[in-house]
C-alpha cells in the first residue's frame, strides 16, 4: 500500500511539479549514478529540492531513493512523520550524536542495502538562494564506504519557487547542474574542500546576471553568494 502510494505520489504529483510546473534546466545528466549504492549531495534551499532530485531518477529506482532527513524536524508531527517516512521515504537521522549513538549508522546500512542517499550537506535550507557551509558528516560517511560514488549536484532557483518562509509555490525554471562523482578515499578536509570547489564550479556555469546580481541594482533581492570555506 505505502509502496503504491509512493509511486503514485511521485508519478502523479512530484514529477509533474518538478518537470511541468517548474521545469528543469538540467546539465550533465550522464553523470547521475545509474544504480545504488550511491550518494548525491546537493545544496539546500527549499522543500522542493528533495522532490526535484528524486525526479531526476527513473521511476524504477524509486524504491532505492532515500532522502536523508533530520529526525527532529520530520518525525515530531505524526502526520508529517507518516508522510515523510512512507511516501517520501526519508531516512531519518539524529542531527546530534547523543549517548554514543552514531548518527551516520542508518546511512551506512542503507548504502550496504544498495540504496541511493539524497543528502544535503548544509544540514538545513538556510537563507533562500545562499549556499551555506557544508557539514563534514558526508566526508565521514564517504570515508567509511570509499567505493560509493558521491555526486555533487548544484540546484538554483528552487529557493525562489518555494522559499522557507512562504507556502505559495511560484513557478520558475530551475537549474540542476550535476558534477563529476568523487570518492571517500581522500582525507576529510581535502574531501570537503574538493566538494565545495566542485559545487562552486558548477555554480559558476550560471549566466552571469543570475549568478551575481549586484546589490546596488537590486537592493531587495538576496544575491546568490557561495560561502567561502
Amino acid at each position, binding site marked *: 500500500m505505502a509502496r503504491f502510494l509512493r509511486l503514485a505520489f511521485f508519478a502523479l504529483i512530484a514529477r509533474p511539479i518538478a518537470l511541468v510546473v517548474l521545469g528543469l534546466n*538540467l546539465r550533465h545528466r550522464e553523470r547521475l549514478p545509474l544504480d545504488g549504492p550511491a550518494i548525491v549531495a546537493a545544496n539546500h534551499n527549499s522543500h522542493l529540492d528533495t522532490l526535484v532530485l528524486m525526479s531526476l531518477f527513473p521511476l524504477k529506482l524509486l524504491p532505492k531513493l532515500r532522502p536523508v532527513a533530520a529526525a527532529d524536524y520530520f518525525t515530531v508531527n505524526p502526520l508529517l512523520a507518516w508522510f515523510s517516512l512512507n511516501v517520501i521515504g526519508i531516512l531519518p537521522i539524529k542531527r546530534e550524536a547523543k549517548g554514543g549513538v552514531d548518527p551516520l549508522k542508518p546511512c551506512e546500512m542503507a548504502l550496504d542495502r544498495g540504496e541511493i542517499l539524497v543528502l544535503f550537506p548544509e544540514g538545513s535550507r538556510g537563507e533562500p538562494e545562499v549556499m551555506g557551509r557544508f557539514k563534514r558528516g558526508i566526508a565521514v560517511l564517504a570515508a567509511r564506504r570509499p567505493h560509493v560514488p558521491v555526486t555533487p549536484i548544484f540546484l538554483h532557483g528552487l529557493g*525562489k519557487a518555494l522559499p522557507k518562509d512562504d507556502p505559495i509555490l511560484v513557478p520558475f525554471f530551475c537549474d540542476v547542474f550535476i558534477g563529476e562523482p568523487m570518492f571517500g578515499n581522500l582525507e576529510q578536509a581535502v574531501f570537503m574542500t574538493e566538494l565545495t570547489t566542485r559545487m562552486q564550479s558548477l555554480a559558476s556555469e550560471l549566466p552571469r546576471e543570475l549568478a551575481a*546580481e549586484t546589490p546596488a541594482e537590486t537592493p531587495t533581492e538576496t544575491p546568490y553568494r557561495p560561502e567561502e570555506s
Partner: protein
Amino acid sequence: MFSALTPNAAAFLAGIFGILLLASGIVFGLKRVHPNKDYGELNSRVNSWWVMAGVFAAAMALSPTLSIIFLALVSFLALKEYLSLIPTRRADRRVLFWAYLAIPAQFYWVAIGWYGMFIIFIPVYLFMFLPMRMVLIGDTAGFLRAAGSLHWGLMLTVFNLSHMAFLLVLPQDVNPAGGAAGLVLFLMFLTQFNDVAQYVWGKTLGKHKIIPKVSPKKTWEGFLGGILTTTLIAWALAPYLTPLVGWEAPLAGLLIGLAGFVGDVNISALKRDLGIKDSGSLIPGHGGILDRVDSLTFTAPLFFHFLYYLHY
C-alpha cells in the same frame, strides 16, 4: 479525426509534415555524404521541429478547445522562462503568482469568445491590478523596474500570444475555405517560415549588417530576401486558408515578415541586456521557448488586427 479541420487545412498540415520529411531526408543525406562532419545541432533542430509540429497538429486536429489549451501552455512556458531570466524581487512573489493566474483567465476569455474582455484584461485591468498588489506589499525600492518589467513580459508572452488563440474562435462563416485552424496555420507557418527564410537568405547572400549591436549575424540581404519570400508564399497560400483577397494577401505576408524580424530582434535585445545566449534549454537545437516564439509575439497581434479590421 480531422473533424476540426477543413480539407484545405488538413491538406496544408500534411504539406508541413512533407516539408519536415524532406528536411529530415536532407539531414540524413548530409550525414551520409559528410560522415566526419558534426550535424548534431542541425539534427536536434529538425527533430525538435517534428515534436513541436506533431503536438501542435494533434491539438489542431482534435479540437479548437484543445488547441486553446495548448496555446495557453505555450504562454505559460514563455512567461515562466521570462520571469526566470529577469531579476525579480523576493517581495513580489505573490504578485508573480497573480501574473501566472492571468493566463487561465485570458485564455478563458478567448475560449468563450468574449472579445471585449480579451482585449482589455491585460492592458487595462492587470496593468492596474499588479502594481496595486505591489504597492500593498509596500516595498518601494526597485518598484518601477519590477512593475514595468512584469507588465512588459505579460504583454509579450500572454497578451500578444493569446491573439493566436483568438483566431480559433472567430466566426467560421467568414472563412469557409480554411476554417479557424486555417488562420492559425497560416500565421504560424509564415512566421516560422519567415525565420528560416531570413536565415537562409542571410547565410547565402548576407553581407551588409542590419542591426549589429543587437544581432550581429542579421543582414539586410537576409531581411529583404526573407520578407520577399514570405510575401510571395502568403500570396499563394491565402486563398486556401484565409478570407484575405487581392492585395490583402501579399500585404499580410509583408506584415508578418516585418513583424517577425522585429519580434526576433526584440528578444535578442532582451537576451543581450541580460548577458545570455539562449533564453533556455527547453527545445533541443533551438534554445528556450522564447527563442522559438520571439517572432510570434509580434506577428500574432499584428496579423490578427489586420485580419480583424478587414473581415470581422
